[in-house]
């Protein structure tokens, strides 16, 4: 059986694949223009951002404690959740305490990780996604396939059909502007009656506790303006040392993600609304979630925790473009997912061990990463981990015969000479399943085994 990600890539519909390729390549172009136009050579900035993140991760206990204190001092309730279940229960109990039955939620990868929506709905809380893409994902019972553009795999026709089916619209109309207006009308009514807003956070500044939220649509702002309760679910790796460091991260995040210097709304929050303000939450809770992050920190792939979720690596990756985010079978797809998912969701490692192998190690992901994560090195470390843990690599051709040949000069010589015989043998029909799978996708060139050695030997004379 071939690797699961290969099967997925082979079976993806043309329509979906075109959507993914168009969306991701456009993202790569915009990023390139925005960064190089403004900075010429952005490489020293990427390295600086990586160094700040590394420093923070190496002192994470200190910075997490500082963040907690800064937030608590400003009237924010801070909670901790070791696991996904802990986080779901913590959020549910805050909501119950405040008698919340209806809320809106802005896009959060951490919430995707813990499958917060279905859990809250099961517990009788009407929880509505407010980011346009996530709203459509929720209506379809689908999963996001990209960090920044969750519906990169969909097109306008599918969305128009969904709106009609779900009663968001009275008739079929696939004009993107009409789709957006219809969502606007539907969602603003929900903001006004919601009793709480749930968000993630892009950064937490440990010196003042300021949470930073970036959106283009303004949904997180709207989700928090009319009601009294704000709950933020935040991965413990989101911390940066000082507010001053936001100059580096905000400038790199927008440009790397969507080619914007800044996303439209960049919101900084470190407490309930001020007394003179009419709108905004009177209660603010921050739930810091581990959910495998301390395991990643302990691993030899801890650099992946620098990630600021910009999706530049997804956009540029030839494998992601062909296979789509769903092929990675976890919250995170693309190169970031191929490294993060197998260790973050550690109990699923054997099942996800094919992801780090689905790469030609071309290194494009390293080059675009705003925090300079050496993604291809990390992919190799995870391949090594799978080998050491003897996780079977289904469908792959066993490499041990090659290793035997390649480490013995005399055996190698014999094999090279013999390989010419392959030109006359119908090896396609050899009863070796992995070999057949492999040959099923490629045509071998004629073997000239041993010719080069012979030529070199004669030349030396």
């Amino acid at each position: 059986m071939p690797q699961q990600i290969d099967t997925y890539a082979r079976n993806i519909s043309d329509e979906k694949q075109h959507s993914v390729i168009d969306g991701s390549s456009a993202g790569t172009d915009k990023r390139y223009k925005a960064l190089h136009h403004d900075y010429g050579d952005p490489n020293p900035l990427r390295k600086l951002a990586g160094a700040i993140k590394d420093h923070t991760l190496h002192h994470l206990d200190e910075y997490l404690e500082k963040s907690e204190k800064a937030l608590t001092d400003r009237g924010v309730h801070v909670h901790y959740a070791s696991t996904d279940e802990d986080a779901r229960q913590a959020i549910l109990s805050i909501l119950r305490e405040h008698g919340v039955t209806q809320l809106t939620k802005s896009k959060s990868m951490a919430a995707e990780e813990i499958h917060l929506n279905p859990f809250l709905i099961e517990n009788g809380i009407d929880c509505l996604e407010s980011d346009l893409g996530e709203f459509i994902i929720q209506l379809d019972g689908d999963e996001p396939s990209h960090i920044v553009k969750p519906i990169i795999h969909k097109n306008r026709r599918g969305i128009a059909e969904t709106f009609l089916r779900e009663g968001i619209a009275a008739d079929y109309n696939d004009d993107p502007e009409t789709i957006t207006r219809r969502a606007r009308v539907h969602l603003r009514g929900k903001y006004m009656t919601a009793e709480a807003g749930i968000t993630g956070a892009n950064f937490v500044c440990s010196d003042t506790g300021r949470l930073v939220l970036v959106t283009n649509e303004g949904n997180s702002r709207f989700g928090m303006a009319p009601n009294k309760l704000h709950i933020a679910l935040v991965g413990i790796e989101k911390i940066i040392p000082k507010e001053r460091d936001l100059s580096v991260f905000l400038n790199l995040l927008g440009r790397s993600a969507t080619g914007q210097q800044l996303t439209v709304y960049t919101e900084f929050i470190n407490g309930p609304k001020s007394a003179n303000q009419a709108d905004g939450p009177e209660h603010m809770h921050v739930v810091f979630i581990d959910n495998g992050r301390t395991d990643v920190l302990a691993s030899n792939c801890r650099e992946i925790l620098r990630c600021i979720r910009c999706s530049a690596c997804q956009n540029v990756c030839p494998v992601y473009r062909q296979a789509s985010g769903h092929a990675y079978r976890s919250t995170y797809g693309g190169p970031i997912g191929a490294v993060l998912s197998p260790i973050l969701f550690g109990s699923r490692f054997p099942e996800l061990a094919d992801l780090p192998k689905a790469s030609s190690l071309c290194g494009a992901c390293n080059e675009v990463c705003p925090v300079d994560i050496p993604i291809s090195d990390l992919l190799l470390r995870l391949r090594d981990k799978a080998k050491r843990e003897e996780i079977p690599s289904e469908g792959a051709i066993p490499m041990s015969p090659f290793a035997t040949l390649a480490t013995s000069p005399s055996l190698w010589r014999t094999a090279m000479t013999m390989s010419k015989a392959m030109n006359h043998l119908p090896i396609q029909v050899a009863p070796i399943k992995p070999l057949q799978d492999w040959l099923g996708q490629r045509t071998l060139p004629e073997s000239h085994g041993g010719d080069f050695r012979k030529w070199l030997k004669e030349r030396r004379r």
Partner: protein
Amino acid sequence: MSRSQIFSKIRETTSSLQSKGAYPEYDTSIMHSAAKLAEPDLWQCFSDNFKAVSGRPMESVAQLIEFLDGNNQRYGYCDPALYEAVGSKLAAAGLTVETEYHRDRYDDYRFGITRATGAIAESGSLIIDDFLTSSRLAALSPWVHVGVLKREEVLRTIPDAIAAFGEAPNIIWCTGPSKTADVEGILIEGVHGPGEQIAMLL
């Protein structure tokens, strides 16, 4: 319970690291975008960059009246502190202006006029904080939002704006109108928030 578990797991790793990354010292000016800061006059510089993100800079109430009238946006909210300088002139021109934001009419307001704390020239962003702004909703629910500021409140760069955060528990930078490209990457303005973002000098 979770707290001590998380901290002890982090410390297990951080205490065993053989070398720890030092905090890199740097000057925030390396993050400036020279191309966006070429214009020396801060208001002009802000205006250019604000237009590049589909914002509309305005220098007089007359300009605002012309825009609102011309686009048939004739009913809205104005911060009471700005009524004399702005709202009353709109009312005199025949527009309907309220100084109290009524939540049950959130969808009726076509424009909302509130005080901006400042602006960032480099990125074309309006700064709104909890202390100066009378209503977060009035800056969000109407199709047109007008952020009113003084010329001397324009800051030059993003690092300058971060250094000027102050004590407000909520600050937001608005870099143009609300937008999305979720549907096939096509840019649409006015998703949840304003479809028109105006910055007007007081």
